[in-house]
């Protein structure tokens, strides 16, 4: 055994691209069959889609007559872009929405860049100050012209509903979770009933209830507009889901944390706000983002009660006689936008999860 050549390289099919393919794609005969089937599926789906969406598509032009190729007609989206992004909001007032879009984008980019100072401050701005600015910007007041909510629509309305749902449902959800974990039997029972009822029914029935029953609940003459009713429904619905997420975090806290803070003489509220909640919310941040993603997707349901959100507007412009027959383009565009938002959020939450994991 002395004549082994120590400088011999490994066989070609064991290393590099070939080795990787042999190990991961063609290790056994059935893996080879599976790989071939997989390749076939990719072949029949991806090239036709790409040529429809890009290579054969029409991007320039102003009317449907410009779309002569066999591919997608993105002119349809381009021509209706203003409706899709702003809804029927008056053209002269669009700068108000643009300011909000700008502030939102800047804050989010700031939060995404690692190792910057004052991230907490930007977060507080986004959660507490920004919504107040938006209320005045969007609906008017302080010298700005009033814009009725029936003119709100498109991506703008989707972001408003999701934003209000997120900002308002978190505090309610935390209170409900504390209530359900409380040692006081009546508080705990009431919170549990509230949470389980909202979680047990589909959002559509909640929205139907909001649009049909809320007017009956209020005294004569008090009339909320449709958007506010929907917002209240969405808020309670998502608060109930968040409550369960937060409760998971509270339950994950070791008992020692409670006992230590009681031993230090903290009152209930001090114990919760200084010791328990900061730690348990940190654990459940990924799950909270998960329910925000669900909420964001669920905002599309408001079109059923007649609000023109992003998807609603896309449906609506598709019924315009000038643009009949372009539903594929509309749906693919909407799907792409929703996907970017939701996938981005889920990737961000995975990153946070790794970063926040301090271990025990």
């Amino acid at each position, binding site marked *: 055994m002395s004549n082994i050549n120590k400088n011999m390289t490994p066989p070609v099919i064991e290393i590099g691209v070939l080795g990787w393919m042999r190990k*991961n*794609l063609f*290790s056994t005969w059935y*893996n080879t069959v*599976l*790989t071939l089937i*997989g*390749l076939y*599926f*990719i072949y029949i789906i991806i090239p036709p889609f790409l040529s429809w969406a890009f290579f054969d598509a029409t991007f320039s032009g102003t009317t449907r007559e410009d779309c002569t190729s066999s591919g997608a007609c993105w002119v349809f989206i381009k021509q209706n872009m203003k409706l899709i992004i702003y809804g029927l909001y008056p053209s002269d007032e669009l700068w108000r929405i643009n300011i909000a879009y700008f502030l939102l984008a800047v804050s989010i980019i700031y939060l995404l860049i690692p190792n910057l100072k004052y991230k907490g401050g930007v977060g507080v701005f986004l959660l507490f100050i920004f919504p107040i600015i938006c209320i005045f910007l969007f609906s008017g007041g302080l010298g700005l012209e009033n814009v009725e909510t029936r003119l709100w629509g498109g991506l703008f309305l989707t972001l408003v509903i999701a934003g209000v749902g997120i900002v308002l449902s978190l505090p309610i959800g935390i209170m409900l979770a504390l209530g359900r974990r409380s*040692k*006081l*039997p*009546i*508080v705990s029972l*009431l919170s549990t009933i509230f949470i*389980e*009822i909202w*979680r*047990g*029914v*589909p959002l*559509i*029935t909640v929205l*139907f*209830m909001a649009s*049909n*029953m809320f*007017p*009956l*609940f*209020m*005294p*004569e003459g008090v009339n909320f507009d449709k958007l506010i009713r929907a917002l209240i429904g969405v808020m309670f619905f998502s608060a109930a889901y968040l409550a369960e997420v937060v409760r998971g975090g509270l339950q994950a806290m070791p008992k020692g944390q409670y006992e230590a803070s009681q031993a230090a003489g903290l009152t209930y509220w001090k114990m919760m706000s200084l010791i328990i909640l900061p730690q348990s919310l940190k654990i459940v941040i990924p799950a909270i983002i998960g329910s925000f*993603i669900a909420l964001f*997707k*669920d905002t*599309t*349901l408001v*079109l*059923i009660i007649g609000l023109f959100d992003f*998807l609603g507007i896309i*449906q609506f412009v598709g019924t315009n006689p000038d643009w009949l027959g372009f*539903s*594929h383009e509309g*749906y693919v565009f*909407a*799907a792409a936008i*929703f*996907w970017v938002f*939701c*996938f981005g959020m*889920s990737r961000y939450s995975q990153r946070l999860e790794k970063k926040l994991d301090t271990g025990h």
Partner: protein
Amino acid sequence: MRPSKFSNFIFNRSVQGAFYQAITLSLVILGIYYIVQNTAENMMARGLASGFHFLGVESQFDIGMTLIEYSPTSTYFDAFIVGLLNTLLVAGIGILFATIVGFAFGIMRLSSNWLIAKIAETYIEVIRNIPLLLQIFFWYFAVLRALPRPKQSIEFMDSVFLNNRGLFLPDPNFGEGSSVIFYLFWITIIISISIFIWSKRRQNKTGITFPAFYVSVALVVGVFFAALTATGFPVSFDIPELKGFNFKGGMRLIPELVALTFALSMYTAAFIAEVVRAGIMAVSKGQTEAARSVGLKEGLVLRLIIIPQALRVIVPPLTNQYLNLTKNSSLAAAIAYPDLVLVFAGTALMQTGQAIEIIGMVMGVYLFLSLFTSIIMNLFNRIMKVGER
């Protein structure tokens, strides 16, 4: 200084607790009273009578798809049942397909084949991050509505036809004697279950194994075909046929049903795939290695060690997904599939104006399903709980 009796009293934990609870309870009661008061006044002002009398009144509207006898002269209660059955139908078919597709993709995602794992991952990440309603719209408006007319149907084996009027399937016709087969089938199933219980007991006592699985499959299949032959094949199929502009005969599934079931199954399957993957990955590698080291064959390692442990993790979130699918089937309202929400909370509500009763009934149905499922799940968890060290 000793604290006074009064401060002793007001700083007592249980006294404080009772105080807070009293405040909460009275606030809630006041709130409910306020709402009830307003509602009563509003209903009086609108001339609405509360109560469930309207359920016995003729509905005077027709429903596009009914599983039971129904006509405009039927009552609102019949409409409720029709809607409920349609919801359960979509949920049932959806759950079946979502489970099959979901398990397939979940296992594919763990495949050692890189390409297959990536395909599954792409499917899951794309489908999960697009709103369900958008997917339903896509399948309904962009795919099924855009299908060719009946004359240019997409055919499958000359008996299944897909076109813009829906999906046409062969309709089984149960002739005389088929009930015998039906009963025999269930009897053999019961016998098989008994064989399983008996063989398990005997194995626990004596260690002797019995091929219960093969025996019961042979029993069920054998008796089924024997009965079929003995009764002279009483089951025939009514195959849809193109007559004029539409198909006659066979079973027709309306496009709304097809689109809704398809979208629901595909969407929920992506979530089920993740549940399955998490469940299988939750079984630690040591379990597989230990099972191999005591000399179990690969098949037995899977069947006796991995699957039972993975199922314990999988089943609770899986039922949760089933429940989600059932609740999501209410999106039917958006494409006019006559489910519970559209028929009852839509049309019936519009006609009668009995918002509280109707929304209450609809929410009650979903609530009942949710609570029922969570009770079953709690029982399951209690039975399946492993005694921890």
